[in-house]
């Protein structure tokens, strides 16, 4: 189960609305390498994981990603609050506005709605952990690109925090992959899938 805490993981206090920035940052909510896909990826993958430490890691990182969904949503909410219709027209935010007004809805910056096709849960732990490491790097690249597009220090500060978390998660998933391999046959990690095949594991 989960419990909500009435606070953000890291402060978001944006003084100046900016619809143009909201239009690109929304990708980290509902885009291909966004926080929603990240959370659902790890929380769904947990059930196929045979190793206790990695079950814990998938649970804890999947939960942290939910806090990141909330931070991105707070950034979008504050960037689009009190916008005039003139600003909405001039910024190109009108294509989002027509469908969602200034409500928060998970789409990619291109406008494509969120889809579960953005992540995998393959039921094979080496495949899943390798996907997760790539996913953290892809999200880090997206944050790097957002930092190239955003000048406002109030926006850059929480985005930089989120970017750093991708690097920490990448590191932890690398360790998780090592833990998984330590439980497998070192002569051939791919000989069997411990999430499916019986008696699959290290030769004793």
């Amino acid at each position, binding site marked *: 189960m989960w419990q909500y*805490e009435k606070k*953000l*993981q890291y*402060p978001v206090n944006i003084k100046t609305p900016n619809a143009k920035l909201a239009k690109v940052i929304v990708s980290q909510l509902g885009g291909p390498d966004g926080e929603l896909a990240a959370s659902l990826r790890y929380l769904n993958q947990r059930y196929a994981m045979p190793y206790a430490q990695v079950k814990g890691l998938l649970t804890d990182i999947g939960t*942290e990603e939910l806090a990141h969904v*909330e931070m991105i949503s707070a950034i979008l909410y504050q960037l689009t609050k009190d916008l005039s219709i003139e600003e909405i027209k001039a910024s190109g935010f009108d294509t989002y506005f027509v469908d969602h007004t200034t409500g928060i809805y998970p789409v990619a910056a291109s406008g494509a709605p969120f889809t579960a096709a953005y992540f995998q849960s393959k039921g094979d732990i080496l495949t899943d952990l390798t996907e997760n490491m790539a996913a953290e790097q892809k999200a880090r690249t997206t944050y790097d690109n957002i930092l190239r597009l955003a000048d406002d220090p109030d926006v850059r500060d929480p985005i930089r925090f989120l970017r750093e978390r991708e690097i920490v998660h990448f590191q*932890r998933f690398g360790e*998780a992959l090592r833990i998984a391999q330590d439980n497998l046959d070192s002569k051939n990690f791919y000989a069997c899938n411990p999430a499916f095949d019986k008696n699959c594991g290290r030769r004793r």
Partner: protein
Amino acid sequence: MNERKMLLNKIKKYDFALKELVLFLDTHTECRSALAMFKKYKELRSSAVEEYSRKFGPLTPEQNNDMRHWSWTDDPWPWERR
């Protein structure tokens, strides 16, 4: 910065340290120094949260102590500019 915000930021700092330690301990379950740091920040967080909920309202519904008013739903909510 007002007292409420300062105290909340203090809790966020302790939570950040704890979150980092949780992920680290997930893959380093026998690390004594990380376990000791976890204990330290857990205690710091617990007294800061106790002070916050007493002065400024609950961070989780069960921290509601007011017998005349359900303060859990009071504004501001975390995503709001302040």
